[in-house]
């Protein structure tokens, strides 16, 4: 009997059909990945396996059996016995998925005691045991820490530890590495792999990242609009996709070995930063987020900046556009020293949600730089905004709509249009695509490239995703701990990294080839603490 048996599952929220006639099964000890872009319904499926849609107003149809329990027909009590004990779920965002007010060990113990009759003391001991198992150093002490005192990777480990507490037959991991840096992501995936081989539990992985799937599972199910598009062994699906959508998806995935093509770079220096330093805090708590960074940006070229969380890359970007004043160092624009904001240096922000004022129509937002410049002629403003909207691939008629009416990719286009309205010569893009689905990512990257060629823009492309950065960059700066550790032509840095840190970073990028992934994992060995 298989561990998971899903037959003709449908889930509807109001008029919205999130999952539409999905069927699959997972054998005991097997590993299956549900892969899809946002809105594909993959997480809804994960929730349905534990009956999490019960009592929420969602309508579910079809049948779901997990570890012998008929989830659709089960009572609340039976469901509670299934959840955590037979099938445990690891959520995406480890910070918000843990109660901020309680010690991590206590939270794990609480879960353990729900399913066993263990004493408080025994439950605590179990918590320390599983924390130790997932590689938390000094687990007995760290069990008393609260979630915010853990790093992102450690929190994810703690969540996995919670899942392990009752030794479940099935582990459901919903985007378990999405919020993590690549090196940490690799460690977590390795951990999952090891645990699976040791305990023999089944794994259902939900992810948008084909690379992550390739690293972790034997079988993959590609989803789109709530339906299965393609289902098969991971090697086969990735190497020889049958469905057109799968191919599209795979094509869109940026590869770390894709070189930059057709650069319009020139020698004219437009932006030059020298010895930039920025401190935060005062007194003993002061620290330098950015320390002694120098960069030059030429007309038409793209300078990539990569780094993991806390490397200082966003701070650098904000200094370059004048939103933050450097503590030390100078920024010269077109040869002249410059402080404060400058219309010619614009920014594209990471989060397409927070970068547009939800209460103003997109046309109004785009018109801001025009009005700020003193333009009063409403007709000309409207004309220019329409022109910009069309230029970034939207319709002029979108002028009067509000941000929430657009998808993430469209909003990022709007952000770009607003930046262009100021007629900039430099565009600093801070993680411009990291919040987007891969297919959308590719389109936005393409748009930026076009604009650069057309307008001779200089781009500073800040991202954590090494593959994306490689695609677009002429030169590359690798940041670590506020400093630029390696700086040079992009191909040089990628092909023959001089720094150990750069090498580690590159080695952690998930490969699309399961066999390559297995080899790399073997090379990394059992993970150290995140």
């Amino acid at each position, binding site marked *: 009997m298989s561990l998971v048996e899903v037959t003709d599952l449908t889930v509807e929220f109001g008029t919205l059909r999130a999952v539409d006639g999905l069927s699959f099964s997972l054998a005991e000890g097997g590993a299956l990945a549900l892969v899809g872009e946002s809105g594909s319904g993959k997480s809804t499926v994960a929730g349905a396996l534990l009956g999490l849609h019960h009592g929420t107003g969602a309508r579910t149809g079809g049948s779901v059996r997990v570890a012998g329990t008929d989830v659709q027909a089960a009572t609340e009590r039976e*469901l509670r016995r299934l959840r*955590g004990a037979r099938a445990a*779920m690891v959520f995406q965002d480890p910070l918000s*998925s843990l*109660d901020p007010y309680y010690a991590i060990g206590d939270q794990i113990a*609480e*879960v353990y005691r729900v399913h066993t009759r263990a004493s408080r003391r025994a439950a605590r001991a179990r918590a320390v045991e599983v924390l130790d198992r997932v590689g938390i150093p000094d687990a007995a002490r760290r069990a008393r820490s*609260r979630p915010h*005192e853990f790093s992102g990777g450690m929190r994810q480990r703690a969540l996995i530890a919670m899942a392990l507490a009752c030794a479940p037959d099935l582990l459901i991991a919903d985007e378990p590495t999405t919020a993590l840096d690549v090196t940490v992501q690799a460690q977590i995936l390795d951990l999952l792999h090891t645990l699976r081989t040791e305990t023999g539990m089944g794994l259902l992985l939900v992810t948008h990242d084909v690379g992550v799937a390739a690293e972790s599972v034997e079988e993959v199910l590609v989803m789109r609009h709530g339906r299965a598009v393609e289902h098969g062994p991971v090697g086969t699906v990735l190497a020889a996709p049958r469905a057109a959508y799968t191919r599209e998806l795979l094509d869109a995935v940026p590869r770390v070995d894709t070189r930059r093509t057709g650069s319009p770079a020139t020698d004219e220096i437009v932006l030059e930063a020298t010895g930039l330093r920025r401190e935060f805090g005062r007194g003993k708590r002061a620290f330098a987020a950015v320390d002694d960074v120098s960069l030059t940006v030429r007309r038409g070229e793209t300078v990539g900046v990569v780094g993991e969380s806390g490397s200082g890359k966003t701070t650098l970007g904000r200094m370059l556009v004048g939103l933050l004043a450097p503590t030390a160092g100078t920024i010269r624009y077109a040869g002249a020293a410059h402080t404060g904001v400058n219309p010619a240096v614009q920014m594209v922000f990471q989060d397409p949600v927070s970068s547009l004022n939800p209460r103003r129509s997109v046309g109004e937002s785009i018109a801001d730089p025009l009005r700020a410049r003193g333009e009063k002629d409403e007709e000309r403003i409207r004309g220019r905004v329409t022109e910009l909207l069309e230029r970034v691939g939207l319709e002029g008629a979108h002028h009067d709509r509000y941000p929430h009416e657009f998808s993430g990719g469209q909003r990022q286009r709007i952000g770009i249009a607003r930046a262009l309205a100021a007629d900039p010569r430099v565009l600093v893009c801070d993680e411009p695509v990291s919040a987007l689905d891969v297919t959308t990512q590719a389109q936005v990257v393409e748009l930026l490239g076009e604009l650069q060629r057309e307008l001779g823009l200089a781009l500073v492309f800040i991202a954590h995703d090494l593959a994306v950065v490689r695609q677009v960059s002429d030169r590359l700066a690798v940041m670590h701990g506020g400093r630029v550790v390696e700086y040079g032509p992009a191909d040089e840095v990628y092909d023959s990294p001089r720094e150990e840190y750069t090498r580690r970073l590159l080695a952690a990028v998930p490969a699309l080839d399961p066999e390559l992934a297995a080899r790399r994992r073997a090379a990394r060995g059992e993970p150290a603490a995140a």
Partner: protein
Amino acid sequence: MSGFGGFLLRRAVGTVITLLAVSVIVYVVFYATPGNVAQITCGPRCSPEQVHQVAERLRLDDPLSVRYWHFLQGLFVGQDFSTGTSVEHCAAPCLGESYQTGRQVLDIILGKLPVSLSLVVGAMVLWLLLGVGTGVLSAWRRGRISERALTAVTLAGTATPVFVIGLVLMIVVCGELQLLPFPQYVNFTDDPEQWAWNLLLPWLSLALIEAATFARLTRSAMLETLAEDHVRTFRAYGVGERAIVVRHALRGAFAPVIALNANNVGSAIGGAVLAETLFGLPGIGQELVHAVAVVDLPVVVGMVLVISFFVVLANAVADVLYAVADRRVVLA
């Protein structure tokens, strides 16, 4: 823990500045208040000469700045007062001497403070219990009859001035049903049981005013927490609804409740003025209203400063509690 020490120091300095600003405002405002202080002190049938003597004794003819300067001197150095037969020293911090009775303001305050503290602190406990309890119940049993009834009661409390609630409660509970004694202040140290028994009604009247706000806040904070990811985690691990509500959702409501509580100390003191007046509790509020009526400036300034001090203190304590309740918050 230098961070905490620094926090205390900054708060202390801020408090002193705030209180001095309050005292200046009170001085200026009451300087402008109508009422011939010397005549009031002396009595209505005093001759102009007598009134003049009183004014001279109390330095009422000095300009505002000089009087304020004397006040500051008293505060930081101390002052001497004549009782007629002898000289009495009022050590710093000396808040001066009542125009009306000649008693030292600090003594007056210290005599009344236990009453007001008993009233406000007790009421606070009660409104927290009542408000948070209602909030929990209404978050848990959304839309049921019990929730709506409780909500209506707390809202009715907010909508009705304390002197109306207090009087009606007193007539019904003490007069007609004779469940409680008519409130009369008993020192806690004399008889704790009678103390609580007598104050129960004033506490309840004050608590009913504030409880609804806390009920709303608790409910919304709990529902907000219930919608959060970590609650989903525990649901997905088979933790029962009751444990989730009590352990996790209620815990999430602590910090905002603490913050609101500090915020409401000020308005509670306002309510206490009315409650003390109505129930005849010899507290600061009652005395203050009287002092305002007779323009007894030293008493007014002293009492306002004490009240302001407690408001500021309540906010500081709330900040500390907030940081304790939510370790992610840094004191600054």
